[in-house]
C-alpha cells in the first residue's frame, strides 16, 4: 500500500522494527481468492532462504506452477472440492483451477499484509508512491478458498487445516459469513485450532455498518478488524449550471469531459423502470441519456456498474449520489466514464436542482490525489458495528485500521473496476472494505511476532489493542463518518491501531487455551459443542463457577440486566476480573478511569499494580455499579480504563449496555 505506512508511522520508526531478520521468519497465510504471483509486490529480492519451519507447497494448476513461488511467495494452494461438489466443475475458461487470482481481492490483501517494496506504484497516477506491505519482509502463503460462486466452508476449513500444518504464523482472512454460534462457524472453529498452535488469526469485521449488531467473526480467539480512513482523498468536484459546486471523489482517468457545462439528467427521469434512479442494467432510455451526464442514486447494484450502464446507454458522465444508507461516506471508484461520487447532502441538493431547472447542466473537475485530509482517521460508514450479537459481554470489533481507498497489488486477469467489460489492466488497484483493514493488522501482527517471537496470539492482539488511539492529536475523539459524531467502542473497538506503540505495550492481557475453554463453559456450551471446537475430551467442572466477564480480554463489554430506565429489578452490579502480564521493565502502574456514563460507578481494586520482573502477572477486579435511580435513557454508554507507569499507557475501552 501507499500512504498507510506513513499514516501508521512505520516510515519514521523503521529502525524500531527488526525488519531484516526476525520478521522474514514470519509467514502470513492469506485465505482469499488466490494470488497474482507476477505482481512486483511478490518480488523476493533481498530475502534469504525460506524459513526452515515452512512445510507448505506451491501447488500447480491452471496457469500456475511451482515456479511461480519464490522466497517471498513461499506457498500457494487452492481448495475447490467443496465448491465443485455444490456447483459442479470449475469452468477453467473463466477461472483458474489453481492458486492464480482471477479476481484481484486476494492479491490486494496479500500485498497489503506483506508485499515487498515497490517504487512508483499508482493506479492511473492516483495514490502514487512507494508501495509496501505492513510486514514487507514477511513471507506470504496464499490459500485460494474463494471462487466466482463464493467461498464455501468445507474449502475454508480445508485451507485452515493445511495452513496450520504448513506452519504459518498469522492467518489473514478477509471474509465472513452469517451470524452463528462459534461451534457452527467454520472460521471460528478453524481459528480455535490455529490459536492453539500459536497462530494469530486476523479477520475482517464485515461491511454491514453502520447498523448495530452487524459484526462477523466475533469469537474471542479471532482478532476482529474494522475500517477507518487514511488522510488521503481523490477529489472530483461537481459544478452545476447554477454556479453551485460540490465535493466528490473519483478514480476516473481517461478522456476528460469538455470544459463547458454539459446537459444533465436524473436517471429516474430517463427510465421507464420503477427503480430507474439506481441506473441498473437495461433501465436507462438511450434517447434520453445520449450525450448527457446522468445522476444516479447509490444502492442495489455495484457503483462501477452504474457507470457502465450509463456509458452503454450513451451517457458521457455520471454523478453518483449517496442515500441515507451511506450518508456522507465517499468511496472512490475507477469508473469507465467520467464520474464522481457525492455524499447524501450534496446529492439531495443536486437532485432538487435537476427537477427544478428546465435545462440543468453540469461538469466534473478531477483533482487527482490530495494528502493531509483531516480529520483522519474516521470510522468508515460501512464498517460493521457492535454490540456482539453472539456474546454481548465480549466487545467487538477489536480495533480499526486503514480500509478506505487502499492501493495495493491487483490481478492482471481483471480490470480495476472488476467489471467483465473493463479491459484495462493495472498493477495496483484502489479498493475499500474491512477486507483491506484486516491484512493491515495481519501484517502489523507479523511485525510484532518478529519482534517478540514468544508472544502468544492473545498477547500480540493485546499489544495492538491497548496501545490503539481513540482521539486525534487535538484531543477530539475519532469521528464516525456515518454520523459525523464521535465514534464509540462499538464502532472502533479499542481504537485505531498504532503499531509503533504496540511494539512496546508495557503490559499485556494474555490468554491460554484453557481460558478460552473456560469461556465456552461460561457460555453453557454442551460437551459436544465444546469438543467440536477443542477436538479433545474436555468437561466443564460442575463445581466451578465460570463467568464470561472473567475472560482476560483487553476490553470490557458490561451488560446490565433489566435496569434500563431505572425500572428493572435485575443485577445492577457487574464484576470483571483481569490479569496483566509485564512485558516491559519493572514498574508501578496506576489506574485511571473515565466514563461518559454518570449512571455507572466504576471502581478498580487494587488501584496500583507493581511489577518487579518480566512476565510477572498481577490481577485486578473492576466493579461496575449501575445506579438504577439515575439509569440512562439510552441503552448504551462508554468509558475507559487505563493503567500507566508514566511511560506506557495500557488502555481498555468499556461499553455498557442495558438489556
Amino acid at each position: 500500500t501507499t500512504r498507510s505506512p506513513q499514516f501508521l508511522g512505520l516510515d519514521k520508526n523503521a529502525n524500531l522494527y527488526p525488519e531484516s531478520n526476525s520478521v522474514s521468519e514470519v509467514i502470513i497465510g492469506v485465505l482469499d481468492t488466490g494470488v497474482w504471483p507476477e505482481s512486483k509486490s511478490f518480488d523476493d529480492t533481498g530475502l534469504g532462504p525460506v524459513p526452515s519451519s515452512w512445510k507448505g507447497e506451491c501447488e500447480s494448476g491452471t496457469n500456475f506452477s511451482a515456479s511461480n513461488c519464490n522466497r517471498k511467495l513461499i506457498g500457494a494452494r487452492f481448495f475447490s472440492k467443496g465448491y465443485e461438489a455444490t456447483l459442479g466443475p470449475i469452468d477453467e475458461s473463466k477461472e483458474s483451477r489453481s492458486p492464480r487470482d482471477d479476481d484481484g481481492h486476494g492479491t490486494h490483501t496479500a500485498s497489503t499484509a506483506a508485499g515487498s517494496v515497490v517504487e512508483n506504484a499508482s493506479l492511473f497516477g492516483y495514490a502514487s508512491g512507494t508501495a509496501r506491505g505492513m510486514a514487507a519482509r514477511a513471507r506470504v502463503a496464499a490459500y485460494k478458498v474463494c471462487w466466482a460462486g463464493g467461498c464455501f466452508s468445507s474449502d475454508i476449513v480445508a485451507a485452515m487445516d493445511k495452513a496450520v500444518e504448513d506452519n504459518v504464523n498469522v492467518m489473514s482472512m478477509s471474509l465472513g459469513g452469517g451470524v452463528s454460534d462459534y461451534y457452527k462457524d467454520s472460521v471460528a472453529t478453524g481459528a480455535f485450532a490455529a490459536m492453539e498452535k500459536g497462530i494469530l488469526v486476523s479477520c475482517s469485521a464485515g461491511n454491514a455498518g453502520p447498523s448495530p449488531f452487524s459484526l462477523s467473526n466475533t469469537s474471542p480467539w479471532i482478532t476482529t478488524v474494522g475500517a477507518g480512513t487514511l488522510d488521503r482523498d481523490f477529489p472530483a468536484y461537481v459544478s452545476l449550471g447554477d454556479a453551485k459546486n460540490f465535493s466528490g471523489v473519483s478514480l476516473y482517468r481517461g478522456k476528460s469531459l469538455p470544459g463547458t457545462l454539459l446537459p444533465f439528467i436524473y436517471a429516474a427521469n430517463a427510465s421507464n423502470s420503477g427503480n430507474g434512479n439506481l441506473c441498473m442494467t437495461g433501465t436507462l432510455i438511450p434517447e434520453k441519456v445520449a450525450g448527457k451526464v446522468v445522476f444516479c442514486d447509490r444502492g442495489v447494484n455495484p457503483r462501477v456498474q452504474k457507470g457502465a450502464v450509463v456509458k452503454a446507454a450513451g451517457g458521457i458522465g455520471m454523478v453518483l449520489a449517496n442515500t441515507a444508507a451511506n450518508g456522507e461516506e465517499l468511496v472512490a471508484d475507477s469508473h469507465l466514464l467520467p464520474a464522481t461520487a457525492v455524499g447524501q447532502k450534496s446529492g439531495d441538493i443536486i437532485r432538487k436542482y435537476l427537477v427544478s431547472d428546465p435545462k440543468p447542466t453540469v461538469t466534473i473537475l478531477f483533482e487527482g490525489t490530495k494528502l493531509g485530509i483531516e480529520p483522519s482517521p474516521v470510522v468508515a460508514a460501512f464498517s460493521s458495528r457492535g454490540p456482539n450479537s453472539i456474546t454481548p459481554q465480549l466487545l467487538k470489533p477489536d480495533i480499526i485500521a486503514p480500509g478506505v481507498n487502499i492501493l495495493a497489488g491487483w490481478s492482471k486477469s481483471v480490470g480495476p473496476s472488476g467489471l467483465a467489460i473493463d479491459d484495462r489492466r493495472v498493477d495496483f488497484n484502489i479498493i475499500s472494505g474491512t477486507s483491506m483493514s484486516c491484512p493491515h493488522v495481519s501484517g502489523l501482527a507479523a511485525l510484532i511476532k518478529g519482534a517478540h517471537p514468544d508472544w502468544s496470539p492473545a498477547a500480540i492482539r493485546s499489544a495492538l489493542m491497548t496501545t490503539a488511539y481513540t482521539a486525534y492529536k487535538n484531543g477530539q475523539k475519532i469521528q464516525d463518518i456515518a454520523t459525523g459524531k464521535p465514534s464509540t467502542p462499538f464502532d472502533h473497538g479499542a481504537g485505531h491501531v498504532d503499531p509503533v506503540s504496540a511494539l512496546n505495550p508495557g503490559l499485556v492481557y494474555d490468554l491460554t487455551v484453557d481460558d478460552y475453554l473456560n469461556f465456552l463453559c461460561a457460555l453453557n456450551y454442551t460437551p459436544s459443542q465444546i469438543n467440536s471446537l477443542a477436538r479433545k475430551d474436555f468437561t466443564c467442572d460442575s463445581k466451578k463457577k465460570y463467568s464470561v466477564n472473567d475472560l482476560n480480554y483487553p476490553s470490557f463489554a458490561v451488560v446490565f440486566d433489566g435496569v434500563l430506565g431505572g425500572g428493572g429489578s435485575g443485577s445492577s452490579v457487574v464484576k470483571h476480573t483481569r490479569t496483566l502480564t509485564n512485558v516491559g521493565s519493572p514498574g508501578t502502574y496506576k489506574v485511571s478511569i473515565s466514563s461518559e456514563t454518570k449512571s455507572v460507578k466504576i471502581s478498580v481494586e487494587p488501584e496500583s499494580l507493581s511489577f518487579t520482573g518480566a512476565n510477572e502477572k498481577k490481577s485486578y477486579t473492576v466493579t461496575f455499579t449501575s445506579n438504577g435511580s439515575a439509569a440512562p435513557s439510552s441503552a448504551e454508554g462508554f468509558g475507559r480504563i487505563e493503567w500507566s507507569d508514566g511511560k506506557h499507557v495500557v488502555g481498555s475501552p468499556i461499553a455498557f449496555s442495558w438489556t
Partner: protein
Amino acid sequence: VGDKKKTYIVHMAKYQMPESFEHHLHWYDSSLRSVSDSAEMIYAYNNVVHGFSTRLTTEEAQRLEAQPGILAVVPEMRYELH
C-alpha cells in the same frame, strides 16, 4: 427437498474411536457408510477439525448425527469477501 444432498462438515470425537479401527480415516469412512452407500468424503480434516466433509440428504445427516462418536454435523455455510 428432503432427498436433495447438501454439504455437511462432520465433527468426530476422535478420542472415542473404537479400538477395532486402526486408522481414524477408516472409522470416518465406516461412520459415513453406515448412513449412505454413495456418499464420498470431500475432505478429511486432521488439524482444525477432527472429521470430514461430505454430501448427504437431510435424513442421512440426521442419522449420522445420532451415531456414536459424532459430535456435530454442521451444514456448509457460504462466506463472502469483505
